[in-house]
């Protein structure tokens, strides 16, 4: 993202603005569909956020709906779900960041140590497969494993061990673990490749010198690889923290199959907003929760960017 800055740095002379505009007239024209798309898809919904302070009615539309002050918010916080969804969103994100990063660094280092080029290529290819498929499909995979009457875990493992099958889809207590595992399973290949690409970019002479000095592999990892990886890890972690209030709708909606008994463990802001709007027709709560998510998300991105700029100004977003 260094480029955002270069852009402001190279400012051309102010003269002949009209002449240059004329020169590029067709390029502006070509870009117009893109601008219109962003206005519709991104800017109009931003305006739509004011609906959180309105009593929205589909018949009246965005502007004609009457204002209602903060009542949507007080209504939202009168629900027990307000606390649950914020807790879940934040806790899942923290768990995903910590575990995801540790696992990905581990995999990246191990992958980097493999010398057989074919094997390396093979592993790299295979661990990315989960990243290729949709969350709906992941829901099927999880179902094949966890279904009460037909799932592999109950029928293939627990039953053979002489244990009772577990009714996975009615017991919220298992789901923090299940969702974390599914998230790691789907994302570890992707994240590992990011770190792996960083590692293979390191200066080889450090390692050569270390080998000459008789360093073990463990010493090379702890004394060279990890310290060199630190800036990347810090950067990516801070950026993930910037998405603290966002959650993967597919993971939390599709993988637990939108099961009511699991809501205490699976409700995040995104699934709450969706269900309130589309299933319960509880528009006010949905809009209030969505508003908080957008604003908090923006605040967190601004804070993290300020932090990033302090840590490593080249990596800052702006």
């Amino acid at each position, binding site marked *: 993202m260094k*480029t955002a800055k270069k*852009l*402001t740095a190279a400012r051309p002379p102010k003269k002949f603005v009209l002449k240059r*505009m004329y*020169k*590029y007239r067709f*390029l502006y024209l*070509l870009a117009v*569909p893109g601008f219109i*798309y*962003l206005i519709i*898809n*991104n800017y*109009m*919904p*931003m305006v*739509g956020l004011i*609906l959180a302070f309105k009593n929205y009615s589909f018949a009246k539309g*965005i502007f004609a709906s009457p204002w209602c002050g903060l009542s949507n918010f007080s209504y939202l916080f009168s629900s027990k779900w307000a606390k649950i969804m914020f807790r879940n969103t934040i806790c899942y994100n923290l768990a995903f960041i910590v575990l995801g990063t540790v696992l990905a660094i581990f*995999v990246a280092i*191990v*992958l980097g140590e*493999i010398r057989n080029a074919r094997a390396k290529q*093979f*592993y790299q290819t*295979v*661990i*990315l497969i*989960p990243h*290729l*498929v*949709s969350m*709906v*499909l992941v829901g*099927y995979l999880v179902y*094949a494993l966890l279904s009460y*009457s*037909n*799932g*592999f875990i109950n*029928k*293939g493992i627990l039953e053979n061990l002489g244990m009772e099958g577990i009714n996975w889809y009615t017991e919220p207590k298992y789901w923090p673990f299940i969702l974390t595992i599914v998230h790691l*399973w789907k994302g570890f290949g992707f994240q590992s490749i990011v770190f792996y690409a*960083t*590692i293979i970019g390191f200066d*080889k002479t450090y390692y050569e010198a270390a*080998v000459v000095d008789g360093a073990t592999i463990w010493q*090379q990892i702890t004394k060279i690889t990890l310290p060199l990886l630190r800036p990347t890890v810090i950067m990516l972690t801070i*950026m993930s923290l910037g998405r603290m209030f966002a959650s993967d709708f597919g993971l939390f909606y*599709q993988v637990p*199959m939108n099961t009511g008994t699991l809501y205490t463990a699976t409700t995040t802001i*995104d699934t709450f*907003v969706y269900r309130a709007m*589309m299933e319960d027709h509880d528009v006010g709560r949905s*809009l209030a929760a*969505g*508003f908080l998510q*957008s604003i908090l998300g*923006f605040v967190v*991105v601004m804070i993290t960017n300020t932090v990033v700029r302090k840590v490593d100004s080249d990596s800052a977003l702006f």
Partner: protein
Amino acid sequence: MAGKGKGFQIFSNIVMAVLAAGALLPFILLAVSSITSETTITKYGYSFIPRDVDFTAYRYLLMSGTKIIKAYGMTILVATIGTTANICMTMAVGYLLSKRDLPGRNLISFFIFFTMLFSGGMIPSYIVWSQQFHVSDKIFGLICPNLMMNAFNVILMRTYFTTNVPVELCEAAEMDSCSQVGILFHISIPLSKPMVSTLSLFAALAYWNDWINGQYYLIRNKDLYTIQNVLNAMQNNVQFLKEYASSSMGEFASSIPSLGVRMAIAVISIIPIMIAYPFFQKSFVRGIVIGGVKG
């Protein structure tokens, strides 16, 4: 990087083999289940071991008529139109921003960039698309919302144009009275093929795997279901399987092999991606590295 221990090589290979197996096993479970007979599934559950090989689920899908083919057609249609629109708009805006002496460049950059910082969220977006633009139950509902362009790709494209297309070359073309649009098509795009293909790939994958637009915007019109929407509907509603297939189908009239059919449809939905994967793997990895490290 340059260890000499043989033990460590063995360790690394074992770890990676275990992880690779972990990544693959659920898919194997799915595939095996789809070719297992209904009675075996009921008795032994979904299993990695094919106790009997039985293609009833696939035969059922073949017999249930053109619906699955139609859903496939929709997926391909939506992905093709969407990806084309996406890459055209991304290139157009990215190219415009790559002109260093463009009047209004900072303003336009900010306009693009701000969408990465702040978003209205799902519901306002849903209200805009469904109430203002009436995309619900139309094919536009699958194509337009959220997937047609994003700021991050525009910035990647612009950066690629500025760093990989020599300014001198563009100036030389200008001297030869080549128009700015001509430079885009004859110089910039041919020189940016790797980036264009990577961004197209990611757009195509996003469309192929998208089910959220269908969930929001296809409320009554099930004829427009893509393969992901079919999977989604079937997961959330067992009845859908029965509605989906025609009612009178000879040997299946009494009982639908629903346990196997679900898995068979799931398998069918990923086969094209798995076949194509070896061909786009390089581009895919490059995209991950560019997006991950810079983003």
